[in-house]
């Protein structure tokens, strides 16, 4: 009975991988090996999916990669002005609110219609993709760098350093992420406008900072947990016994083992950040119009959903597939590297 473990059964740590590699030769006897046999067994059972998981990536992963490549390429090319798109800010007032499924009919010359200001949807989504992706990626990079460093320090050194960093994380975590991001955007806007006396700071940068700061404790905690487990391994003790300095141990022994976990989380984090940008846009503090982002296209015209559903649904579909792809890829990477979900 108890179900033979499925495709994404936690393979414990890198040493699990090692056992998988050698299990046919070694230790069929231990319970672990039996479990792993079951893993292989069920992998076969699910029609070769496991086989792919073991070696290649699988159809789903390739679809996901394909979609992301498409989105990134279109956004970048649009931003570089290489694509023959209409301007995202130019109004074709005769076409306002028109589009597929719109009450008032389709817009001639605009395949996917126009928004309520008569701006071409295709152009807005392509340029909007750039904003959304820049904000999400930037924020996650910010979070990875700072959260990573803090988490690594906390997990590796433990003691007082850990106590301080963890309690700072906890303060941030006690405030719901969206609320914190909202407050931070408001705060940073205030700071930027009074600091430089104008609004010439790119609002995307503010968003990157705000979402990035919110992601620091989240990513930091995951890094800390991973660094903590690896720091307790005997090879770290062995390095100390050889007289390696703490910094050397942290960078050479612990960090390389922590990085894979962070990379797989990064994909999920980008997905979350895209949604976060959208959420902030709906609440009116996202990327500032007229610069489009997927979030603010929806946010601006969500009141017209009854008459012109396409304005809301088209970017929503983009967000959905992008987030789905990132989640799926993150999961594939995680299954390959075994980062337990509980760490999230």
């Amino acid at each position: 009975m108890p179900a033979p473990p499925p495709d994404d059964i936690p393979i414990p740590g890198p040493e699990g991988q090692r056992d998988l590699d050698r299990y046919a030769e070694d230790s069929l006897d231990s319970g672990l090996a039996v479990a792993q046999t079951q893993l292989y067994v069920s992998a076969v059972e699910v029609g070769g999916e496991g086989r792919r998981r073991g070696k290649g990536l699988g159809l789903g992963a390739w679809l996901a990669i394909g979609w992301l490549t498409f989105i990134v390429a279109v956004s970048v090319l649009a931003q570089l002005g290489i694509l023959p798109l209409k301007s995202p800010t130019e109004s074709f007032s005769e076409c306002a609110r028109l589009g597929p499924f719109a009450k008032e009919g389709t817009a001639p010359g605009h395949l996917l219609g126009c928004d309520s200001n008569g701006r071409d949807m295709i152009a807005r989504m392509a340029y909007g993709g750039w904003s959304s992706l820049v904000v999400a990626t930037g924020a996650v990079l910010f979070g990875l760098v700072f959260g990573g460093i803090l988490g690594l320090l906390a997990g590796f050194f433990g003691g007082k350093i850990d106590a301080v960093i963890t309690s700072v994380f906890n303060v941030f975590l006690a405030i719901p992420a969206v609320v914190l991001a909202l407050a931070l955007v408001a705060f940073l806007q205030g700071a930027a406008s009074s600091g430089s006396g104008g609004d010439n700071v790119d609002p995307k940068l503010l968003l990157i900072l705000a979402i990035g700061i919110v992601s620091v404790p989240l990513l930091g905690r995951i890094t800390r947990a991973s660094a903590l487990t690896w720091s307790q391994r005997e090879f770290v003790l062995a390095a100390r016994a050889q007289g390696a300095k703490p910094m050397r141990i942290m960078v050479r022994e612990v960090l390389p083992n922590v990085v894979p976990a962070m990379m797989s989380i990064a994909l999920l984090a980008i997905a979350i950040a895209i949604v976060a940008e959208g959420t902030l846009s709906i609440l009116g503090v996202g990327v500032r119009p007229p610069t489009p982002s997927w979030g603010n296209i929806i946010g601006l015209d969500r009141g017209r959903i009854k008459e012109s559903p396409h304005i809301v649904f088209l970017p929503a579909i983009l967000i959905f597939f992008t987030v789905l792809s990132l989640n799926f890829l993150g999961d594939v990477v995680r299954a390959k590297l075994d980062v337990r979900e509980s760490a999230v």
Partner: protein
Amino acid sequence: MTQPASAPTVSTAGPSEPLLQVEDLRTHFETPRGIVRAVDGVSFTLARGKTLGVVGESGSGKTVLSRSIMGLLPKRGTIREGSVRFDGTEITELSPKEMRDFWGARMSMIFQDPMTSLNPVMKIGKQITESIRQHLDVDKKYANELGENLLRSVRIPEPEQRLKEYPHQLSGGMRQRVCIAVALACGPALLFADEPTTALDVTVQAQVLDLMATQQRERFMAIVLITHDLGVVAGRADEIAVMYAGRIVEKAPTSVLFSDMKMPYTEALLSSIPKIEHPSHTRLNTIPGRPPNLVTPPQGCKFAPRCTYVQPRCLEEDPPLMPGTQPGHEYRCWFPVGTPEGAEALARNRADQAVTGGAA
């Protein structure tokens, strides 16, 4: 194993029939790398009240053997062939639902690590009475009394108190006693003990092994004692089976095995163990190389690549189980230890080695 469940078999066991009769049992796992032959044609019989010691290194298939006999392996991806007759019933053909009447009630099992084989969030009393309530038609109060008596019989102090505790509140040795109590709860006729003392200290190991021996005598229970430690089975098993690469390579009554071993693997295994009576710094005999890959095992004798007696024939022809001179003794070897052929083979190899060694 998807044979339809047969009609309930009437126990045909006469008093002469052994309790457990395993014939040519094969357990293979389908894996992406190919078929793993974890158990590859194992046969033995075990009489009531007797102990069979199964000895092997990790990867020899001894754990899979016990779980395969009990039918505890997942069905999917597992190919199980051969016959297991338990008390006159062919149990390989039974569905898990039918097996449930055997599990715990007529055959049960204890594992290596007593910590992980007890549910950490369930009270000990519950874990003991669970199978009693499952298999015997008794009320809760009586089941509790039975549980208390069981704990007393495995010499756990203050059993009444212990029933209300959780596993982590006990020491390792006590936990293994609880496991034994759980396994004995419904008075099984057969107990599989899978490395029951490997995780325990020597003094505690001795206590637990003694406890098992006492219970075995009192209950006239048969035990399959699985271990990697020849020392553990030497004093406690009636018969010993040595496993290598999924097969029994030598099987004999305990005293015969130690006095007249025929299989070079058994000999090598025994001589690689440090002995108390040898002086310090005695050079140990080693077995070179590693156990074979169970997906693509070598042709011929599976031990041949590591064997000091190896001859060309061993690399080509797989030796069958051959009867020894003494009753009950079987082994798989073309050039057995202590026979003229064996001695000759060894001498030849030594000479060859001297030649190549000299040339180098």
